Every structure is written in structure tokens, then in C-alpha cells.
């Protein structure tokens, strides 16, 4: 009797886990919940941009009001500005990250130094964005570190005003924030390039430059693309930097979405969000078409994730 009562729950438990092991419910269940949390909200946003607001209530009638007001109110200029700043910053990060990723993967021979640098690059993902950004005010402001230092040295007589609350300040503040997302994929793909390829290329008489252009660059394309995507995506919705360092002069899509939601203009906010997603989809498409000949996308996911 005692044996059977002890054995029954265990058998039941192992039966349950055995089912979980083969997982008839986990994946479908996860997909349903995940779709409700992620996919459906995104689809609803696109749909919402075609409704209108009357007396602070959403009227479920098809309408292009939100899209028309996007153009008449000049908010589309914000989208263009956001795209320009996002692309500029992506180019700057790529310029900084590609040589560095190559050096870190192939040039840096000291393992502790490599681990130290990777640690330094990982930590920023977990830091509070607003307190990191607000410090730039103390550095760039008209009474801040750079201006008072330069004035003390006698280089300038009056503080340089464009250092803070300008597009320059926003760009400057973004350099550090968006660097790790660009450098990590590039570093990883560079590490995967076999050293013997580089040796073979040199043995066959290629100069380092030729090795770079004909061997390293084609092999590094997936990492570079992943870096561009992971940097461009958050840049398109940058919010903290323009708000804290732009001083109201650098209005980007993030602020527009925020202010539209505050004014209860839900369709406008939805249309702006749709613009962000559409621009990103377009950029992705262009990137894919540009590199399709050199690189097979279907293999990217199967190769990296088993």
C-alpha cells in the first residue's frame, strides 16, 4: 500500500515530463501567447492608422485622416530627419566597428585583454539609458567641462553654444550607446573566419589589402548585416538622446509618437509607428537584395542556430 502511493505521483510526474520532453503543447502554446503579445499588437497598430479620432474616442471607420495629417502637419519631415540621423550614425558605427572587430578577432592575441574588452562592451546593455545620457549635459553644456576648459586655456572667449542642444550633441551622445550592437556581430563573424584562409591567401601572394577585400569582406557580410540591422533598428526609435541632448531642436520619430499618444491622437501615433516599421522593412529588403547574390539567407539561421 505504502509503495503504491509513493509510486503513483512519481509515475504521474514522469509521465507529465515525458510529454513535455516530446512537447506536443509547448511550441503551439508559446506561439499563441507570443502572437498575442507581439504579432497582434503590431498588426493592430497598422490597422489603427486607418481609423480616426472623434471627441477623444476612436471611431472604427476606415479613414486616411491620420496619414493625410502626417503630411499636412509636416510630421513626415520628422521621419526624413530620423532616417538621415539613423543612417549617419549607422555609417559612423560601422566605420568604427569594422576595423575594431577585425583587430579584436584576429589582431588581439592576449586572451585576458580580449575577455576584458568583451566585458566592457557587454556591460552597457544593462545600464540605465537616461542617467548615462544626461551626463553629456555636464560635459557639453555652455558652462560645462569642454567649454570651461577651452575658455580657461584661452582658446575661445565665449562658450561654443552648438555643443549642446543641437544635432551635433545628439550624434555625439549616440556614438557610445549604439557601438556594442554593431561591434558584436562583426566580431563574432570575424572570429569564425578560419585563420588558415588568411594564411592561404598570403601564401598565394595576396597583399593584406587583397586578403581584406577578397577574403575577409565577403566572409564577413552576414555579421556586418546583422550589425547594421541591430544598430539601425534602435536608432530609428531613438528617444532618450534626442530628448536630453537635442533640447527640443532635434525632434525625431520617437518624440512624435510620444507626443501624439499624450495628445490622445492614437491613429497618428499608429501611423508614425507604421512609418518606422515600414522604413525598417524597406532597409532590410534593400540590404537583402544587395547581398543576395553573395550570400544565401536561408542558411544564415540554420547555420548559426543548428
Amino acid at each position: 500500500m505504502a509503495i503504491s502511493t509513493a509510486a503513483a505521483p512519481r509515475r504521474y510526474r514522469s509521465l507529465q515530463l515525458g510529454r513535455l520532453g516530446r512537447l506536443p503543447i509547448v511550441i503551439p502554446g508559446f506561439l499563441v501567447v507570443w502572437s498575442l503579445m507581439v504579432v497582434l499588437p503590431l498588426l493592430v497598430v497598422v490597422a489603427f492608422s486607418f481609423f480616426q479620432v472623434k471627441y477623444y474616442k476612436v471611431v472604427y471607420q476606415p479613414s486616411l485622416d491620420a496619414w493625410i495629417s502626417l503630411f499636412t502637419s509636416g510630421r513626415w519631415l520628422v521621419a526624413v530627419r530620423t532616417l538621415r540621423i539613423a543612417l549617419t550614425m549607422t555609417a559612423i558605427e560601422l566605420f568604427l566597428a569594422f576595423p575594431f572587430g577585425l583587430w579584436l578577432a584576429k589582431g588581439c592575441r592576449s586572451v585576458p585583454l580580449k575577455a576584458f574588452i568583451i566585458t566592457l562592451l557587454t556591460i552597457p546593455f544593462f545600464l540605465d539609458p537616461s542617467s548615462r545620457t544626461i551626463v553629456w549635459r555636464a560635459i557639453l553644456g555652455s558652462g560645462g567641462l569642454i567649454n570651461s576648459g577651452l575658455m580657461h586655456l584661452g582658446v575661445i572667449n565665449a562658450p561654443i553654444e552648438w555643443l549642446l542642444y543641437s544635432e551635433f550633441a545628439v550624434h555625439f551622445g549616440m556614438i557610445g550607446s549604439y557601438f556594442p550592437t554593431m561591434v558584436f556581430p562583426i566580431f563574432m563573424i570575424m572570429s569564425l573566419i578560419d585563420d588558415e584562409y588568411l594564411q592561404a591567401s598570403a601564401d598565394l601572394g595576396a597583399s593584406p589589402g587583397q586578403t581584406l577585400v577578397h577574403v575577409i569582406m565577403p566572409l564577413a557580410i552576414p555579421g556586418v548585416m546583422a550589425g547594421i540591422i541591430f544598430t539601425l533598428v534602435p536608432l530609428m526609435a531613438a528617444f532618450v538622446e534626442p530628448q536630453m541632448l537635442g533640447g527640443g531642436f532635434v525632434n525625431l520619430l520617437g518624440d512624435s509618437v510620444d507626443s501624439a499618444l499624450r495628445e490622445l491622437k492614437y491613429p497618428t501615433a499608429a501611423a508614425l509607428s507604421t512609418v518606422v516599421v515600414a522604413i525598417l522593412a524597406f532597409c532590410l529588403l534593400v540590404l537583402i537584395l544587395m547581398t543576395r547574390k553573395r550570400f544565401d539567407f536561408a542558411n544564415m539561421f540554420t547555420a548559426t542556430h543548428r
Partner: protein
Amino acid sequence: MIGNPRLQRLARVDTHQLDQRGRYWRRLSGWSGWGRVGMCLGFFAIAMIYVPIALLALMSISQSPLSGIPYPLTLQHYGTLLSDGRWLLPLQKSVIMGVVVAFTCMLVATLVGRAITRMKRPGGVLIVSLIPLFVPGLTMGAALFIFLRTMLDLKLGLWSIFVAHMVWALPFALLLVLVVASRFDLRLLEAASDLGANNWQRFWQIEFPILRPGIMGAGIFGFLLSFNELLRSIFVRGQETTMPIYNWAMAASQQSQVPIIFALATIILLVTLPVMSIFFWLLFRKAG
């Protein structure tokens, strides 16, 4: 055609030009300093990350933080911080939220990660689960707000912050578990069964110890990502305030609150930086 003398001359001119170009190119590309240039570019970017953080700590003990000049030094901002106390509740909420998100991430990522590695064609599920990585945080926050508040007319609060944090943290947690789980040799499980282990023992004694680094990583990532999440929380917070929202609101609106924010951020950094440094150092040193 082969014996065409003009063609030969063209070819000779071509190789000559190529030689000329090649020589400069070769000299330029053979320069040994390129590695150092790459290193310096990266160190510049890393300095752009850590100089503000160092200044944050310095400014928190200086008289007038926004002037950028550290002297005279003072601890008065920490005193104000301690007597203020409004930040305690947001901090408490953020810590609890982080722990809950961490444990949920560990559980879900383990279940789903194991399942994905046992699928024949995991591509579709993988892409769907990684969608949030490709959607800007602010867009995701606005989408969740419009869906939950405007369309479903629900009362937002800590639960919706939790949903937003899960949307953000789970893809990372899943990737971490997948990296470990995809290296897992399924024959080990067969061996365990052959030796008479039941499913429960097979999981706890064979599979879990091997997956543990990935699961622990998922928990740590879950906590840290949730603890610092701002862009999504802003929209779906309802009346609630977490630590990053508190910092953001104070920094964005009230100049007089900035010194207190500096002090608070410094304390949080002093606690989290050593923990993170040791954790990642151990993680990457092993991997490297």
C-alpha cells in the same frame, strides 16, 4: 584573333598600369599600423561609453554637477538622496519586477529552447520568437499601449510592464538557452534511458546540469534587461513608476533633481558594475 598584335599591346599596357596601382596599394595595405588604427577606433568608442559613466560618479560628489567642474567636492547630494526617499518605491518595484521576469525567462526559455532544438524545421518558430529584436522598443511600447489600453480597454499597471519586459527579455534568454541546447548531444538522453532513468531523473540529472549555464545566463539577462528597461515601460506603465522611468522623468523635466539622479545612478552602478564585471569576465574568459 589570338595573334592580333593590338590586343597584346593592350594587354601589356594593362598589366603595366596594374603593376603601378598594385605597388601603391601593396605598400599601403602592407603597413603594419592598420591593426593599431582599428584598435584605436574601438578604444575611442569604448571611451565614449565609459567617460560619461566615470564623470557621472565624479559629478555626484561635486557641488554643482551640471557645471562639469568637479570642485568643490561634497557629499551633500547623497544626504539629500537619503532624506528624499521617493526613489525607494520605484527601486523596490524594479527589483521585484526584475526577479519575476528573470524566473519567467528561465522557465519559458528552457521549455521553448529545448522544444526548438528537437524540431525538424525550427526556422519559422525561431523567427517569430525573435521578432522583438527587430522592432524598436518605442514602437513596441506604443503598439502594446494601443492594443491593450485603447483597443481592449484594460487598466494598465505592473502586469502590462511585465508583458513588455517579457517581450524584450525573452528573445535574449531564448538565444542563450539555444546556444547551449543546440550543442547538446541527444544520445546522452537515450543512454540515460537505457540505463534505467525515468524522464524526471533524465531531465534533472543529465539535461539540466548541461543546460545550466544557458539557463542561468537567461535569468541574469532577464533581470538586467528588465531592471533597466525604459522605452517600452514608458507607454504601458499606467500609474506605475519603475526605477528607469523615475530617473528619466526626473532627468527630463526637473533640472534641480539632476544631482540626486547622479547620486542614485552612482550607487546603482557601484552595486551592479562589480557583479556584472565578474560574471562576464568569468563567462568570456572560459569561452575565449
